[in-house]
């Protein structure tokens, strides 16, 4: 049945997508239930735990605090977009694996999307800053150490690559 459904057009992981969603459906449920991207998880639906963190127009957002209708015209990136085209894990995912930055893995997509948005800022960050910046996503398994190490390594890698590009330019 349709209960005030809206048509939504968005770019999802580089692909143009059109779908319908009830007015009261939040963006996380929309991504999972209507677009089949179940890598984005739902943990509290009140914007605290950060499991549902995705990138909307380049910013990390908690998609449980957005309505699906707000994604109309937006560019959305979810965890499914991160791996390299040849199927390999990207540098951030590899760093999480190397540093044991995940155990049950439920929070992992949220941290990966948050870290991706941090890297996009192109600023160096200390460990303390990283700890502050990632405090919007909770993890109950790891104690965060592996996550902090992985994000730190990835940000440094991005910094170095950025510098190389600048030199070449």
């Amino acid at each position, binding site marked *: 049945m349709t209960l005030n459904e809206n048509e939504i057009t968005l770019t999802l992981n580089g692909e143009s997508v059109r779908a319908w969603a009830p007015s009261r459906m939040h963006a996380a449920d929309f991504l999972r239930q209507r677009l089949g991207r*179940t890598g984005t998880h739902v943990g509290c639906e009140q914007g605290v735990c950060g499991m549902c963190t995705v990138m909307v127009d380049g910013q990390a957002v908690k998609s449980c605090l957005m309505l699906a209708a707000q994604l109309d015209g937006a560019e959305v990136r979810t965890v499914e977009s991160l791996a390299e085209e040849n199927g390999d894990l990207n540098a951030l995912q590899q760093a999480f*694996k190397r540093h044991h930055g995940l155990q049950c893995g439920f929070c992992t997509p949220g941290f990966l999307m948050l870290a991706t948005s941090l890297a996009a800022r192109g600023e160096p960050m200390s460990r303390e800053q990283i700890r502050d910046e990632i405090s919007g996503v909770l993890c109950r398994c790891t104690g965060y150490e592996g996550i902090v190490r992985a994000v730190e390594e990835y940000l440094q890698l991005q910094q170095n690559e950025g510098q190389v590009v600048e030199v070449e330019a």
Partner: protein
Amino acid sequence: MNEFVEAPAAPKETTRQEESLKHRLIGTSVPRTEDERLLRGDGRFTDDVQFAHQLEMAVGRCPFPHARILSIDVSRALELEGVKHVLTGEQVREQSAPLTVLRPVPGAPQLPYYALAQDKATYEGQPVVSVVAVSRALAEDAIELIEIEYEPLPHVSDAIAALEEGAPLLHPQSLASNLLASNGDRAGEPEARIEAADVVLRSRMRIGRVTPLPMETRGVVAVWRPGARELSIHTSTQVPHLVRKQLAESLRIGEECIRVSASDVGGGFGMKLGVYPEDVLASLHAMALRRPVKWIEDRMEHFRASTHGRESIHDYCLAADAEGRFVAMTNTYTTDIGGWNSPFGSSQLSSVIFTGPYRVADAAVERRVAMTNKTPVGAYRGYGQPEVNFALEVLVDRLARKLGKDPLALRELNMLRPEDLPWTVPSGAVYDSGDYLRTLRMAAEAVDYAAHRASPRVPRPDGRILGIGLSSFVERTGYASARFLANRGSKFGAHESVTLRANRSGTIDLYTGVSSIGQSSETAFAQICAEVLGVDFDAVRVHSGDTASSPLNTGAFASRTLIAAAGALREAALPFRDKTLRLGAWALGIAPEEAVIEGYEVRHRDDADKRVPLSDVFSRAILGQGIPHDETPGLETTAHFEPPSAAFSFGTAAAVVAVDPETGEFSVERFVMVHDCGVAVNPMIVEGQVRGALVQGLGAALGEELRYDAVTGQLLSGSMLDYAVPRAADVPPIELLHTEVPSPVTTFGVRGVGEVGTIPPGAAIANALCDALADYGVEFSALPITPESVWRALQAARESTQGAAA
């Protein structure tokens, strides 16, 4: 063909030593196989399972801590378009039996805990009605349209008050009081020793109520095919085979009709141990509607409907001679189990390790299980051990202050030495082996304890005073045996099991009932299996948590998986290896003794040209072609293994705190953990487990608490906004040190590691605060410890000093 292998006696010491010399994978930080899917968003958690024509369930819950249900009118809900089915208590009573208990308290009656409340509800959040509709949102709309008339009843939310004369009774038809049961253990003559002791300390210690809070809430998808008589359950559980048993009991159908699978589980921590009301409800709806029914717990429900942890009150008595030698110890503890008995009930483990790592022959413990109008309490990581560690270790420091002794020296004096082990504690459990003293000394050295003790407690320039606190512990990991469990009335065994099956691609399918909850068992199991077989790590594919494909097992809890599974893996792999060698040798025309397995091949020991791929060898076995005449076709082994005893992990933590003596504000500046879990199969995973559990322990020590309003009985901290779970920025610097004393009672010498971190933080921090504030004379007798509780302790100390002066 199946080759069922009998569980053998404990492997001989020599065998283990020989094996440990040539370990190729055991002891290596192999990257986790689980990560590949989880990092790509390809995990399959319960809410990711989706069926065509699936319906969704919502649950209406009692808003009062204790209330009689006078009437329920569902008519308006049924009129809402899209609503398919509604259940009330009456129908549930007709169609199902009460939830059963896996770990009953000896002597406790079976309470009539139905999936929906009958004439009354005994906790806020107890399910009263359930609705299935085309969407969750619509099902919730329908719940709003159901009219329920409640008569609120007097409630009790404090466990001690609940046991007093005249307290409101929760279950008068089953129990004459709110005492569900009590039981105890004793050794020697503690009362006589206490009578004769030079020093006797008594204290009441309160441990707060917390929630395990896995990031994935509970969930269930139930699919019923009536013609096949098959109920297929996808659920987020640590114990698929036990859920199958309990569901069969509640639904009154045979276990053969039920398949339970848990693919990826987003954390459990003891909370996902067994059947909950919603599992039964989703099944009943699915059976009535013949359509798939999904229920995903939302976080507000989770705080009220999933079992809580810890809350208990410990009345400890520690008696010593003038030198500080412990002569007797007793602990009478009251656990608050809430409104109903949960599948795993109250913490028996507090009774097992209440004497800690100390030499005390005369000791007694008594457990009293109290019912209150709160959410049921169940297992939570550590499960009784952080509680008694806090009580005992705080008391040890208190004794040191009373006697004017150094807390480190007092622990040294009383600690069991390696030569004292094995040591039997009053419960009959046996500490297997270990060097407890070494961990104490390592922790002290790491924080420069001696220099700190020699310096005065003066404020730093920032006004804060430094203190160091120690906490030593012994932790039971795994279960002693099925016989030990039987004595306690447990409805589960102590064994683990695996099936290994060769496939035609030349790899090995490993089937286990252990679900993947973040503990990395898929990686560790493959390491052990590949180690014994001689194949590559990648040649073993682990299939977890499906009752239809795995041999019957026990499950992922009590730090027991590897304790038991290591043996099962070895006992299944050895005959698998031998048959592979026999068939491979036959194919090569050599003797089995000349053949070895390496990588993906069987080859001649000395002649590298004589080789045959495993895909060939396994295909021969599966086809029954090209094998010796006296061999049967097939290559598949199953082993069940029960360790002869529990393995006890041990260690010492040291906390360094800086506290402001005016405001009570404090921070943990360093936290050092020295820990021994025997042989570490994968050191990277061990570190992850210890760190993760430490942060949970720090959370419970420093702020997490489920508080109930004393007047209304309502949960006050029942959302993520109100419950202070540690964030990345809240975690103090943690340093880990390990010792490795192999356990003599397990295969490969492993000890459990999943829970240990939850144990020492509370006591170490309390002791550090007392050390820093030694000149003020503060004491702590409750967890959590917040700046407010430090400030109150300072006020109390000042008042008592002034009182003494006046």
